[in-house]
């Protein structure tokens, strides 16, 4: 066998360069729209980001000025509500799927969760409208939180389950062989080992629902003022952006841009946080 170059070699080099070029170009095409969106937001929104935006309530209709502080705080409140409901159910459900149950039931549950993950989020809004808003005769933060939670649950369920399944069986066996009970093994060993992955799943779910608008349309409904009780309507950043964007007022358009920029930046930061968390010790799962 010769080690010298043959003419095949040149042709292979060309093919190689071509493949690299195509991959590179495709990558650019993917990143470009994202970059453009962010850039556009930055141009249109950065000008309206000021102290007022983060501290003032919306001005009366038609008047200039004001801010979105109630929407920002409202979004955070809704996230907290959704988290309180959705995180425990999602995580425990994921643990159940991974550790307990029978093969057939689990396959069914997984299928259902995957289906629910694909359901348009407005559907959840409608469901909660029928179940809660109509029954209690009013829009409320509870309803908004519940709708968001329902979106979160199948998401966290699946990510938790996958991450727990990734924990090597050797750790479970080692713990059980020490005479530690099953549930303690799951909580103190398995979940602890998978903790990074579980937290990542939760953060990503929070980032996802943070930007959901449709389910909040007929549950939280939005509020131009401070929300004083969770059984009252509450403002949320995406909702506010929607309301302002379709309005005829230029000032509100400006603020909508700013709001969108803040929202995207928030999601961006959460993802960076996730990256930082998953960078750590080598023995992490996910």
């Amino acid at each position, binding site marked *: 066998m010769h080690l010298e170059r043959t003419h095949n070699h040149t042709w292979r080099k060309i093919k190689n360069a071509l493949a690299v070029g195509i991959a590179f170009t495709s990558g650019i095409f993917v990143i470009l729209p994202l970059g453009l969106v962010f850039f556009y937001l930055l141009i249109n929104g950065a000008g309206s980001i000021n102290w007022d935006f983060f501290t003032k309530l919306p001005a009366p209709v038609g008047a200039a000025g004001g801010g979105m502080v109630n929407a920002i705080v409202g979004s955070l409140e809704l996230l907290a509500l959704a988290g309180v409901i959705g995180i425990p159910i999602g995580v425990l459900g994921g643990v159940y799927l991974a550790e307990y149950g029978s093969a057939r039931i689990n396959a069914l549950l997984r299928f259902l969760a995957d289906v629910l993950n694909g359901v348009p989020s407005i559907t959840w809004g409608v469901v909660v409208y029928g179940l809660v808003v109509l029954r209690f005769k009013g829009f409320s933060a509870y309803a908004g939180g519940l709708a968001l939670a329902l979106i979160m649950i199948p998401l966290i369920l699946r990510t938790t389950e996958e991450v727990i399944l990734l924990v090597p069986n050797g*750790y479970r066996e*080692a*713990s059980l062989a*020490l*005479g530690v009970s099953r549930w303690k093994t799951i909580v103190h060993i398995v979940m602890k080992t998978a903790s990074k992955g579980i937290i990542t799943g939760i953060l990503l779910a929070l980032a996802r629902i943070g930007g959901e608008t449709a389910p909040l349309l007929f549950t939280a409904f939005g509020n131009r003022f401070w929300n004083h009780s969770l059984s009252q309507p509450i403002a949320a950043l995406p909702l506010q952006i929607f309301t302002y964007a379709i309005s005829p007022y230029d000032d509100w358009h400006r603020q909508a841009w700013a709001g969108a920029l803040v929202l995207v930046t928030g999601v961006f930061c959460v993802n960076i946080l996730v990256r930082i968390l998953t960078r750590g010790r080598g*023995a992490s799962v996910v």
Partner: protein
Amino acid sequence: METPEQTVLERLERGTAPPPEAELPPARTFEVKNMSIWYGEKRAIDNVTLDVAANAVTAIIGPSGCGKSTFLRALNRMHELTPKTRMEGTVLLHGEDLYATAVDPAIVRRRVGMVFQKSNPFPTMTIGENVVVGLRLNGVRNQRLLNERLEKSLRMAALWDEVKDDLHKPGTSLSGGQQQRLCIARALAVEPEVILMDEPCSALDPIATAKIEELIYELKTKYTIVTVTHNMQQAGRISDYTAFFYLGRLIEFGPTTKIFTNPSEKQTEDYITGRFG
């Protein structure tokens, strides 16, 4: 009966030859009777009866798929973790039935510890936390007791001197052989009566293996040890009794010297001399 203290000279004076090895019946830790285990439809263990001697090392040898690991795991009910297992027969630990309906498997496993083929210190814990995790998760809170057991177990596992200044480092920062000794310390910390070892050295280099064999030798004065091994020279080196399994059946069981110099069964002889397997 001659005592070990009598010297050769005294024996010569009395004109008798040295006595044969004292044939005291060894105390029995496990009594296994007619054990059969099925995984679904497949029979993995076929009517095995044997007694495991106390304060001795019993080695289990045999070709792949002969049921050695299944048998070992049945001694501390770990085989029940596999779905669809069924067991018949009895296993007595110092006379108590391990499989009685009222018995909690977790309690069994506290008395019969296990060390696995691939060392598995918990990655989220430090060395110190790894050793005492069995105690802590079983409800022991007394810090002084935990520290005592920590040092005692690491000393017994011949690891104390190497790690005593590094107890805060992650368990996975040790070498392979050290990790395995850490797992042994972890098993010792809950003060079991028996230690089961499933091919403890197969993933280790010769020096680490030798250290663990030396450790097994020291441990057997206090514990009963049952070990599965593929390495017949190792079985010959460390064990007092050897059981040869084939296709789920116990073919032969006896003192290691007999099994390795003059086994009774032809299958045993063929396996250990490398004529099949």
